[in-house]
């Protein structure tokens, strides 16, 4: 269940890519576009009355007889919010749930290792609180906390819950879900999320069994969340119709995301989390 040290070592070298102009309030190790107090030299500018006299570069003054202020780049943290869909639909299939946990744990780990501020919210997890942490000292602990997330209670829908948990002032929001809710609801949610004007990552996880249903014959399908039942006599034709419908659903989800400038990722549990993080995420430009 735990990641190997090797993998964690490689994760430590990665960081989340955030192009946002806005940063968090606290100091971090992430180079900011703002001028600040890091050791990194940025440029000079002429002294304006009211500038801090301490910032005048006297060496330059000695050579030019003009007052220049020496400026440095700032190093700041970013706020990363990870919303993990912990509804029953995510948990119904073990592989999917594990993948989701691993992805969110690894992303949390990367965040903390890079001295960024993490806000991890397990949505619909009734008895688990969200984690607010900063600093690499918490990285290991948070990683194992997330991986050991054990939930059993049945839950209501993801969208309803996430709306109450939305936070502003995050530079990066990562939503991990299976997207098994009506598209219209998602459109509303994504519209709302997009309004915070930060970078948003929508990770859509489905298991292989959902993509290619393996059951045959007559089945009474029970919804893990709503407990509604559907009697289905599965035939190849029906399955292909289902797949078509699923494809349409996913495409609409992706389209909605693109409309709101939300990065959409589609994962399935055929690949391991390690593979996804170390190669696919890098390719997609999520981490570097």
């Amino acid at each position, binding site marked *: 269940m735990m990641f190997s040290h090797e993998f964690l070592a490689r994760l430590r070298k990665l960081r989340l890519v955030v192009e946002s102009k806005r940063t968090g309030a606290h100091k971090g190790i992430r180079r900011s576009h703002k001028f600040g107090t890091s050791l990194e030299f940025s440029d000079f500018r002429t002294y304006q009355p009211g500038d801090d006299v301490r910032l005048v570069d006297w060496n330059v003054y000695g050579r030019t007889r003009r007052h220049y202020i020496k400026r440095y780049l700032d190093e700041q943290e970013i706020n990363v919010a990870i919303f993990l869909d912990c509804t029953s*639909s*995510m948990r119904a299939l073990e592989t999917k749930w594990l993948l989701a946990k691993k992805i969110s744990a690894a992303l949390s780990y990367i965040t903390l290792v890079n001295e960024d501020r993490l806000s991890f919210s397990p949505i619909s997890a009734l008895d688990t609180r969200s984690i607010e942490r900063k600093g690499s000292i918490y990285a290991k602990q948070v990683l194992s906390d997330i991986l050991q997330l054990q939930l059993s209670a049945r839950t209501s829908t993801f969208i309803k819950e996430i709306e109450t948990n939305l936070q502003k002032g995050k530079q990066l929001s990562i939503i991990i879900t299976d997207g*098994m*809710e009506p598209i219209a609801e998602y459109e509303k949610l994504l519209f709302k999320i997009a309004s915070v004007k930060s970078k948003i990552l929508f990770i859509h996880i489905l298991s292989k069994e959902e993509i290619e249903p393996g*059951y045959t014959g*007559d089945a009474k*399908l029970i*919804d893990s969340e709503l407990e509604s039942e*559907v009697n289905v*006599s599965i035939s190849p034709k029906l399955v292909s119709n289902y797949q078509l419908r699923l494809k349409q659903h996913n495409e609409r989800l992706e389209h909605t995301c693109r409309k709101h400038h939300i990065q959409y990722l589609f994962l399935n549990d055929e690949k391991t989390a390690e593979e996804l993080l170390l190669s696919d995420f890098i390719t997609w430009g999520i981490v570097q």
Partner: protein
Amino acid sequence: MGLMNPLFLLLAFFIASVLIFYMFRKRYENKMIPSNLLWEQLMNEWQASPWIDKLQRNLLLFLQLLILLLLMFALTRPYWMTKGIEGEHIILVVDTSASMSALHDGITRFDEAKEEISAIIKDLKHQEVTIITAGSVPNLLVNKEVNINRIKKVVDGLKLSYEYSDMEKAIRLANSLAVNKDTSLFVFSDSIKAEDLNGMTGSIPISVFNMGNEGNNVSLKSFGIGEKEHHVTGISVIENQSKELKTATLLINTNENNVFEEKVTIEPGEQKFVKIPKLPVSEYYKAKIEVNDDYSIDNELIAVSRPSLVKVYLVGDVSPFIMKGLENIGYETIQMTEEDVERDLSDGIVVVENIPMEKWPKRPLLAITPDNNKEITIQSEIKTENDPVFQYVEFNKTFIQSAFSSNNINLPVIAKSGDIPLIQKGTVNGLPAMVIQFPIENTDWPLHTGFPIFLYQSFQWLAANEEFFGFFLPGEHRWLNVDADNNEWKVFTGNGKFIESFNLLEESFTAPQKPGIYQTVANEKTMYFAVNLDDREKSIPYSPSFRINQPLKESDQNVVNHPYDGLWFWLVFVALIVLFIEWEVMRRGTRI
């Protein structure tokens, strides 16, 4: 209490099927999946496809309406008319005579008739069928048969008998079978005319199907051979029955070798005699005309040459009048002593005088005074039976002085004086025998003109039974008189294929049906005999088909309409099936 229709208990099958349906009803396996979101949408769409949607909304209603409709229609007992054959009992009379083998449009009249019959049988509906073949005697093949398959088998097995068919007799038999009920009679022949049926009583509908059509025929009317001065000569008569000039080639062959050939041109309707001057000696001669006609079975005739009994063996002290008389009428007489009787006498007739019955050789025989113990003077008038041997003889005008009375010869008496038998005629040991109970010398008979005539006719009769073998009509039955040790006769075809064997002590000899040459083996002796066509079958007359006593005046008369009312069953059946469907729909709710 009883069940009127216990057969319907078979419908318990439906109860069983309901139970089976119950047992195998759809059982859904519970399956927890993350979300039904898409499945629900899918199933909604699946069920909501336009045509099924409309239907489904009221499917139960429609099904119930359909059941009620079907039941209602079933109760109305619908029926319609189907084609069938008139009559409860159908009698088919089939002509199997040789003329039915005449070709018409490439098939024989007989095959055409069989096709007709098959067509009729196809239309049968639980009707009784009787099939009679009309040969020389009518033959009842099936009687009041209902089983179609058996009837079909019999019809398929119908064969030509080549006999002369006595259609009248057959139709009369059919008529007598048609006593009660609603009977119709179908006759399949080729030349029955409405006048032929005039004698038929009753009003049963008769349909006569005359097969074929007018056809060309050249017939070999007769063919005979004779021996004259040690030469075999022949004569044949060929008749052109067609309406055009015909050229035929007459071929005579013996043992597959052509020995004579002549081309004959005959005017329409004419006969032509062909004399065959000289033929090599052979056991049989096959005459054949090669001509293009529709009826080939009458183009062939067979003549079997037989050793004519020209020898007469005189055993004992035979009266010289007899000897002279026989020589006069052309017989070769051979005088023998009593001791020579053991010799082979098979090529002649035997005359014995004063030899008791026990010592008679086993041959056709004329015995004079076999029992000469008690002489009686003839005083009363001579009376003769009307026997062919006395034709032109006027035996009663003969003066007979005395006769020997004998009680131990039990032969039919053909001439007597009072109670005293004078001439007896019959069979002894299966052979013809005549007994004259008076010495010829004691009469003035040899002076009468009738004496040689009597001798001639007697010897003809004696020889006739010997010459029984030679010609038969197809399928002819004939009782043959044979010795006890000579009773197993085997019949082979001309080229030696075994046909059947007869035990002539127990059964009559039956000639094969098909015309041609045959041989029999009896007592290690082979004899040829020919089966030749009846003279009446040597033409192919044709008359148009007709019907009489038809109750219905329809254009298509051999089919009448029978109501078919079995539909209600199928309606109920369909209603039941719809009921099952309805249950299934109900059970599933609106899901499919």
